[in-house]
């Protein structure tokens, strides 16, 4: 589905929600809940908190449905709400350090075992994305993971278009450098050559 068609469909749904159609609101929820969850979870690294943020996002969309401006994209609006809520949560965390026990993945032994399996590149990339600075991480997630246009990313992040391109480029460069040793290990293993375990 191209962006223009998706935009028109979103506007039709939100118009119906404004008229009190809860079925249309359910459709909007199904469309955007996983997309928002992907971005918010990678920002917060907590399943529970990410789901709370996404629920709060849809609640606010419903409460302020009458104030939606049809000159803009609905996706821009909903991403902006979700990311603002996620940023607030991150700021709160900086003041009070919370540790979610459910997010601590096993013991050090399990993590070490995970590290010696270089073929699991998507998970390696996932961890690499987690280690990115927030501004690069967000730009990369919105552009290369969610595949939003550069202009929409600029509106959501409220930064100039050139800054978006610069940040996305920088994020790609950092991730490429981090993935390079994993890719070499993966290639060596596929050739049957043993290589020492290297850390990211």
């Amino acid at each position, binding site marked *: 589905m191209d962006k223009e068609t998706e935009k028109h469909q979103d506007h039709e749904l939100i118009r119906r929600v404004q008229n009190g159609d*809860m079925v249309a609101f*359910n459709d909007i*929820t*199904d469309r955007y*809940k*996983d997309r928002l*969850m*992907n971005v918010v*979870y*990678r920002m917060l690294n907590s*399943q529970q908190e*990410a*789901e709370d943020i*996404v*629920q709060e996002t*849809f*609640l606010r969309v*419903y*409460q302020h449905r009458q104030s939606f401006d049809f000159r803009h994209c609905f996706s821009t609006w909903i991403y902006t709400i979700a990311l603002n809520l996620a940023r607030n949560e991150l700021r709160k965390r900086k003041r009070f350090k919370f540790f979610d026990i459910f997010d601590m993945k096993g013991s050090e032994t399990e993590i070490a075992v995970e590290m010696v399996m270089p073929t699991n*590149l*998507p*998970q390696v*990339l*996932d961890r690499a*994305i987690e280690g990115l600075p927030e501004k690069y991480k967000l730009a990369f997630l919105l552009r*290369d*993971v969610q595949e939003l246009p550069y202009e929409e990313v600029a509106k959501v992040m409220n930064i100039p278009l050139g800054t978006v*391109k610069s940040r*996305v*480029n920088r994020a*790609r*460069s950092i*991730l*490429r450098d981090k*993935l*390079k040793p994993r*890719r070499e290990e993966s290639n060596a293993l596929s050739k049957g050559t043993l290589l020492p375990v290297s850390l990211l």
Partner: protein
Amino acid sequence: MHCRRVRSFLSAYCRGELEGKQARAIADHMANCPACRGEEASVRDLFKLAEELPSTPVSADFNSRLLNRIAEARHQETRTKAYLPKSVPVFTVNRVAPVLAVVCFALAFVFAGGLGNFQGHDDPLMALGEAALDDSYLTVQPVNEHWAFQKQLNRATRIQDLMGRIMGQSSFNSFAGQTDWIQSRRPMIPVPVFIMPSTGSQHFMVPAQPETLLIREVNADS
């Protein structure tokens, strides 16, 4: 193009975000540079991995929990509206000014004693007011004794002479003596004689003090 410059545009090239002359220049460089071709492969792998990133779906009851939250928010909103007025009454100048004017007028009327006009004489304030409208005009007011005394004396002398000539009586000489007595005493104001109809006696009103009068009965024979 140099390798360093090419690699800065590699990710945009791989995404198809470059156009025309720039894209052709990079493609030409790639054809002749194995190192840059290796970098291009790593960038394309990165994008492929990004598409394969594990997604984190929401819980199964996400939609139902969301609808419950919306229903609760709407319930709270309607409860609040039931207890609060739709709009707070605004006290504008146009509404307040007439009320203030009436209140000020009423206060001024009260403090000016307006209400006292409609009250009886039992009011102590009114009694005080009434004291100003008393019967003081019925009492003798202190006068300029010197001017009034001389004037009265002259009048009395004239009356005496006239009556003496008419009556030719010596009894009035005693009156003259009394007049002298009157003159030698404290300043008193002899007023015209009046005759009591019942007894026929003559009376002088002679003030013993400037503020008061003594009525002194003078018989014609004394």
